[in-house]
Structures are given as structure tokens and as C-alpha cells.
């Protein structure tokens, strides 16, 4: 579970973002799913995702692992998680997935209206929706919303609020640029769906608002 439905952030940036999951069903189409998942992942590389990971290796696109090693790790039951930051790319990807017709479950997580629009354009008939009814309980204990817009990109909570503050400090003091700061933020996420392009945009907005103690 990647918690992608609870991603927070400015609506204009969330609207450009589409998280895609390829998910074999245990007991139904697990067996023989390895080659199908590999074909799908090879296709995804050509569509220009912002980030991607396969669960048999759990190292994201920016980890420095060669593509061949990532693809060779795929076996039956492997799940693929990836994120696009462009409507045209997800449209083309979904069209290709329909053409390939591998029979593996496909999920897209994004702003509902946007997904509805793309699904209708490519002729899909969505089956099930997982709605987020938000966060409940001691919300006062959460980090502030400007930090959560980064940390909630990783549903398992692997991206720490302290790391976001540390990256802001390092960008502010000239030790990292926006893009490399975003790659650092994406590193701990084991689902590979932290979107470094969105992180970079958000860092540009956020960094001027923070002060740094240089002592």
C-alpha cells in the first residue's frame, strides 16, 4: 500500500501528477506475471516517468542501478510503481497498456477529475475507487503542511520531516541545488513514487521562506 491517495500539496501541482501501479493479483494472475510485468516496465521506460521502481529490487530510478539489473530482477508477482508529471505521458502510457493487453491490474492515483478525463479519452472503464477521507486524530502532532507536501509523497513514512528541513538548509546554504535536493528527498522512499520534479518546484517556493542558523 503506497498511500498515494493521501498525497498533499498545491492542487495545481497535484493536478499534473499521475501515479501508476501495475499489480498482479495473488491467487488469480500471479503465476506467469513476471514476463508481462517486464514487458510493461520496458514500455514504461520509453514513456519518460518522473520516477519508477519494481518491488523485487526496491531501488528507484535515481539510485544508480543499471536498467538491465532492475529489469532482470523481475519475477512472478513483481509490482511496478511509477509516477508521471505530464498528462500527455500518462495518456500515451495508458494507450500502450491497453494495446499490450497483459491482463494485469492497473491503478492510477491522481486528481479524480483529471483521471476521469484521461480514462474517457483512451476508452477505459474504471472499476473501483479508493477515496481518501483524510487524516483524523491528533493532527496537531503532524509536521506542518509545507513539510507534509513532501513527506506524503512516500506513503510508508520513510521520508522524514527532518530530512526535508535538512535539504532546505543545504539548498539555502548552497550545498545542494533544487534538483539534487529533490533526489536526496526521493532516496529513502521504497515505493519509488516520490516525484522529484514536484519536489524541486516546491523547494523553489519554500526555500526563500526559511531562515538558516549557520552556527
Amino acid at each position: 500500500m503506497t498511500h498515494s491517495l493521501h498525497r498533499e500539496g498545491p492542487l495545481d501541482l497535484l493536478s499534473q501528477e499521475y501515479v501508476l501501479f501495475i499489480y498482479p493479483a495473488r491467487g488469480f494472475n500471479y503465476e506467469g506475471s513476471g514476463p508481462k510485468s517486464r514487458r510493461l516496465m520496458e514500455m514504461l521506460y520509453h514513456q519518460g516517468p518522473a520516477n519508477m521502481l519494481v518491488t523485487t529490487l526496491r531501488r528507484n530510478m535515481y539510485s544508480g542501478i543499471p536498467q538491465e539489473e532492475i529489469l532482470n530482477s523481475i519475477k512472478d508477482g513483481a509490482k511496478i510503481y511509477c509516477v508521471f508529471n505530464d498528462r500527455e505521458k500518462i495518456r500515451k502510457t495508458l494507450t500502450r497498456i491497453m494495446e499490450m493487453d497483459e491482463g494485469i491490474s492497473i491503478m492510477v492515483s491522481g486528481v479524480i477529475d483529471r483521471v476521469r478525463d484521461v480514462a474517457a479519452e483512451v476508452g477505459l472503464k474504471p472499476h473501483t475507487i479508493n477515496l481518501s477521507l483524510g487524516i483524523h486524530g491528533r493532527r496537531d502532532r503532524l509536521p506542518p503542511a509545507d513539510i507534509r507536501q513532501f513527506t506524503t509523497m512516500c506513503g510508508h513514512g520513510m521520508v522524514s520531516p527532518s530530512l526535508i528541513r535538512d535539504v532546505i538548509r543545504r539548498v539555502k546554504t548552497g550545498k545542494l541545488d533544487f534538483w539534487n535536493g529533490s533526489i536526496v528527498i526521493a532516496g529513502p522512499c521504497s515505493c519509488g513514487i516520490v516525484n522529484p520534479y514536484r519536489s524541486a518546484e516546491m523547494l523553489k517556493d519554500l526555500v526563500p521562506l526559511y531562515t538558516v542558523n549557520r552556527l
Partner: protein
Amino acid sequence: MLIRKERCVGCGRCQPYCPVEAIYFEDLKSDVDQEKCYECGTCLRSQICPVDALEESPYMFDYPRALRKYFSDPNATHALTGIAGRGTEESKTNDVPNRVGPDEVGIAIEVGRPTLGMDLRNIQKITRAMAKAGITEIEAENPFNDMIQDHQTGDLKPELMGERVLSAIMEVKVKRTQLAHILGTLKEVAKEVDSVFCVDVITRLEPGLKVPAEVIRTIEAEGFTWRPNAKINLGLGRTNKRKES
């Protein structure tokens, strides 16, 4: 997680990687607060330590501490279910087994998310409230089941009470008519827990990616709102012709 004191050079680079700030300075070197540590392994996986001072605790898989690992490290596969992660496949593959049918809803309660985690005493408040509301059956393969001692009361196993997990997902499936009752229960128990939980509602879609009006009306009537983003199964999965073992 442990830090080998003889190796640590006190650079502190590992500290910001800990999601719960369990790594701190002690005598100019980093140390891990074992009570706070969820055994998620983020610090070790980051490969940030320049002298390889981080190491997994030899007691990490001892029961009941092992729960921290299973429910906090996405790379760990739960010994009971054989599934990596905190929940099952819920909506992600619903187009194949049709686990959630047309007159049903799935409800997922993601305890401790985002990032705060939750101790088992607080989780028990939720399981007890759900049991009191008549929800005594949790999704069969959900590792949550392994924590429960008595499904009728929602009591967790007493030996787990000192443990904490970064995230666990309690998944149930009910008739749509029961949704209001459960949402009302969750609204009440939210006042009692000392952490956070996220609520998901999983439902079949009508043509044109339309959420059934009955579900929408219930959510609104119980004072909940839904986020503009959601996870949507596109209906492209199908079962293998040959039955799987």
C-alpha cells in the same frame, strides 16, 4: 537499529533520515533511542554513514519487537502473511477477484499515517471501538489479524502493549448500508487516540468514473469530506485461465 560506538565519528549525517527522530547525539557520537526506533531501516538503507557504523539489532526479529519491523519497513515481508507491506491488495486488484462487490464498501484505517506511527495501546482503542460497532472480521490476509487476541472484543495480545508500529492498515468490508455506522465510530474514536489515522473508502464505480450517490451521501452525512485525489483501478486485470495454487 544500533550504532557501533567504536566506529561512529559523530558526523550526525544519519540523524535527519530517521522518520521519528530516534537518532540523537550522546557524548559527541550518534546513538539510537531503542524505545523510539521503529526498526524501519531507513537510516541504514540511505547508506549515508561514511564509516558503516549503523547495524541492524540482533534482537530485531525477536517477538514481539519484530512487529516493529514488519509494520514499519516496507521491504520486510510479514512472516505470517508472506506479503510485504502493511495491508493486502485491497482496491488495487479488485477488478480481478471482485473482493469489494457492487453493494459493498471496503474501509481501510491506516493507523499512524502519515509518519507519526502509533503504539499498540492506541491501536487497541480503534479495534475495540470497531468490535463494539459490530466489526469483528478483518480482511483475511491482513497482518492486523495476527495482533488481535479476541475479535469479539477487539482486544490485542497483551504482550504487544509496549510495541509501536509506523503504519498498519486495518481493512474491513461491509455492506454499503453499514458505512455510516462505521464512519460515526471512527469519528468518535479519533478523539481518544494519541496519534493519527487516515480513512479510505473503497467502492465500485459506476460508468464514467462516477462514485455511487449512496456512498457520497453517506460520507457527507457523517461529516466527512474526501480529498480531490484518489486511487483508481482501471479495470484492465483478468484472471489466469488455469487456477493458481
